[in-house]
């Protein structure tokens, strides 16, 4: 079925060519499942858009391959006295792709654009009251409270040229109808937008005047969205594309074994977990239990945690590529609690005992909501969870659905238990506390579908956000991690893997946020 001899010959040929020629730069073709729906960096706060545009636009700071924060359009930054905010010193001599100069006005313009009502990235500046221009190359971000993580939290805040935006009527992000910035871009980044054909193909060319030293050798980069995984795999194997992300876990082995291809499997920062309907008075999808919600009892929640064999799920469904998780953030992330690194042991007997104690010794049935196209093998994981729970006498009725309707169902409280994956946008443990653990309000706990509520956690969130002393901050994060574990507010299952596949002659850097940075690509 598969061509095996030809790539070997081609590879041998290219090696002989390479030995006699200097490394030639190349057109680089890559594919992903989703097209960035806009070229406007403030219009949609979604990974496909931000990942793509980070090649074209730049922020004041950027993240290195290990997710560390490093200077970009700002050369340095320091906290203002009394925690009043942050002062950024801007890089001089930077030009936008159209040649105009970058300075403080562009930062202030971009800030105003990003906090406008039409913007989808306003939440990044929730703590900012104003941005002050100190001089041409110094700006102050004034915040309501000290915010030690602020520089890292705006790594995806991309700077537009104020003059370009004004000339082209792109002062605000497009809300209803598209505007000039929807299909055109004028950033300061390592690549320039050469052609944009939405949903079909987007071409980038290197920015010769980039302020930083280019680490890549790409002369042209062409992105094609390929929605069908089998088509994407065929395109990679036939050599029509150099790189694809992601590929299905079940295809990774096949690609790995073939000559001339390479699979890069790392861990994403996304933790897959189970959530409960904490504030539901009754189970909705139970055949026999009405008027009561067994998940109110922490012992029942603990029984669920102990009945699930995450190691087996990892080995069988995730092919060993995932890593069991104990908290809402993966091990090693900023703010991860080392004191709470152990997840409950897999112990069906203990789980049965806990159920007995809680008065559900005969088990009960309930509904488990699950997406079927959002996370890697999500439905299979839910089915495995259901069969493991069946062993302690609890019957989970799995209801799997496409993600396009999933969040709606969860917001409408149509679940007893649900599957959720969370990747902290700020790469810090504060993020899931803000969105998943805080009692739901208009702005906080917005993804806490089950309505988990703990006063101590609510009280700790603000101090965590403003604590400047790392040790004191970590102590509070540890406390929250402890409460969440003690309460079994969620059952963290595992950290999801990240599977990239490419031709062997391509070198890339896999960053845990799944952003694909062309500036680290070399084609040999």
């Amino acid at each position, binding site marked *: *079925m*598969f*061509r095996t001899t*030809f790539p070997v010959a081609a590879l041998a040929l290219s090696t002989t060519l390479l030995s006699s020629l200097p490394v030639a730069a190349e057109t680089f073709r890559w594919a992903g499942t989703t*097209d960035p*729906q*806009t070229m406007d960096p403030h*219009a*949609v*706060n*979604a990974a496909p858009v931000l990942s793509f545009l980070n090649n074209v636009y730049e922020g004041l700071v950027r993240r290195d391959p290990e997710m560390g924060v490093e200077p970009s359009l700002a050369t340095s930054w320091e906290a203002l006295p009394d925690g009043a905010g942050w002062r950024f010193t801007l890089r001089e001599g930077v030009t936008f792709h159209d040649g105009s100069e970058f300075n403080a006005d562009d930062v202030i313009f971009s800030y105003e654009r990003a906090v406008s*009502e039409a913007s*989808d*990235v*306003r*939440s*990044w500046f929730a703590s900012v009251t104003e941005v002050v221009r100190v001089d041409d190359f110094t700006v102050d971000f004034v915040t309501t409270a000290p915010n030690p993580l602020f520089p890292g939290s705006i790594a995806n805040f991309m700077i537009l040229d104020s003059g370009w935006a004004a000339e082209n009527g792109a002062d605000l992000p*497009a*809300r*209803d*109808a*598209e505007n000039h910035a*929807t299909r055109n871009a004028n950033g300061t980044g390592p690549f320039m937008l050469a052609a944009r054909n*939405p*949903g*079909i*193909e987007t071409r980038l060319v290197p920015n010769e005047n980039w302020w930083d030293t280019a680490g890549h050798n790409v002369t042209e980069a062409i992105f*094609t*969205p*390929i*929605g*069908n995984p*089998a*088509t*994407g795999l*065929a*395109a990679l*194997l*036939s*050599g*029509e594309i150099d790189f694809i992300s992601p590929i299905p876990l079940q295809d990774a082995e096949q690609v790995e074994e073939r000559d001339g291809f390479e699979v890069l499997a790392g861990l994403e920062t996304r933790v897959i977990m189970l959530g409960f309907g904490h504030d539901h008075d009754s189970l909705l999808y139970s055949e026999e239990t009405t008027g009561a919600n067994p998940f109110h009892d922490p012992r029942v929640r603990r029984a669920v945690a102990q009945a699930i064999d995450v190691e087996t799920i990892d080995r069988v469904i995730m092919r060993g590529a995932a890593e069991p998780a104990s908290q809402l953030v993966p091990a090693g992330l900023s703010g991860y609690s080392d004191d709470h690194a152990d997840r409950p042991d897999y112990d069906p007997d203990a789980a049965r005992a806990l159920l007995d104690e809680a008065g559900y010794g005969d088990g009960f049935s309930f509904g488990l909501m699950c997406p079927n196209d959002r996370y890697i093998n999500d439905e299979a994981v839910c089915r495995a969870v259901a069969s493991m729970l069946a062993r302690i006498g609890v019957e989970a009725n799995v209801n799997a659905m*496409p993600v*396009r*309707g*999933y*969040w*709606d169902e969860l917001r409408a409280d149509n679940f007893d238990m649900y599957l959720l994956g969370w990747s902290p*946008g700020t790469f810090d443990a504060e993020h899931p506390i803000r*969105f998943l653990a805080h009692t739901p309000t*208009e*702005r906080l706990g*917005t*993804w806490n579908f089950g309505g988990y509520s703990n006063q101590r956690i609510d009280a700790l969130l603000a101090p965590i956000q403003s604590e400047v002393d790392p040790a004191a901050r970590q102590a509070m994060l540890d406390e929250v991690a402890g409460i969440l574990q003690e309460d079994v507010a969620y059952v963290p299952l595992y950290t999801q893997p990240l599977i990239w596949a490419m031709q062997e002659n391509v070198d890339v850097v896999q960053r845990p946020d799944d952003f694909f940075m062309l500036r680290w690509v070399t084609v040999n």
Partner: protein
Amino acid sequence: MVAFAVKRLIQSVFVMLAVAFLAFSLFAFVGDPIAQMTGVETSLEDQDRLREDLGLNDPFVVQFTRFTGDMLRGEFGYSFRTREPIGAMILSRLPATLELGTVALLISLIVGIPAGIYTALRPRGVISQSLLIGTLIGVSIPTFVIGILLIFLFGVQLGWLPTYGRGGTVEIGWWRSSLFTAQGWRSLILPAITLGLFQLTLTMRLVRAQMMEVMRTDHIRFAIARGVPWRSIRYRHALPNTMIPVITIIGLQFGGVIAFSIVTESVFQWPGMGLLFLESIRFVDIPVMSVYLVVIAFFFVVINLAVDLLYVAIDPRLRVKESF
């Protein structure tokens, strides 16, 4: 004839309204567009404001009336997802789908009609039997499997043809065509075969059945008795008589080819309307889905009309009777 055409076109407006209504009432179950349009960090109040701005809080009747009103004025609105004007979006994807559909249909006719005649004339021949068995496989394997098999054979293993996309396009005005370059044809051939295979089978079997039936009719028997040469009997007397039902079915199938190119377009990442529709479903882009369905309904209506008119042109008997 003109009155007939006008009458049918007026009817078609109602057909499209009905399609729009059905589509619109189904979209309530597709999912929440707002969750697809905003990031995870967007506050609920911002989401609610967006929902209000887009008119998603309005009652169904208001939304539907606004949509049909805009359509009648020729305003197709903007995509929720990309904010592009939908008219331009559909128009830019239309050539890809029409070219794919037309080439697929041509393949099915060029191969299907001769194969149908051959299998009718030599029903017991080895070639006939293997053709019939072969087409049975063509009907029973789902389109996407055929597509993937072709991709892996010709794209990956042999490396002869591109595995995805629409290369080598030339722009003629707004029409982006892949019919004028070798590269364009190379990327067109696999999707066209995949899409045309079902039609091919259908055409072949239809021609075969019709031909066999016609060969048994009195006027053919009489011709044989008169000693008319076989060649003339088969191609001058029998074949035209088999073509009337064939044209009807094939004409009607063309609408199906356009509408069901969705699967083929997805397997080959062929940038046509079907792929656009699939993407729109994935991201709950309700305006694009609605316009697509109405456009497809329009195609069906126009094709049916064309078939009816063609009927009259081919069959002289229908010209006499005012049977419409």
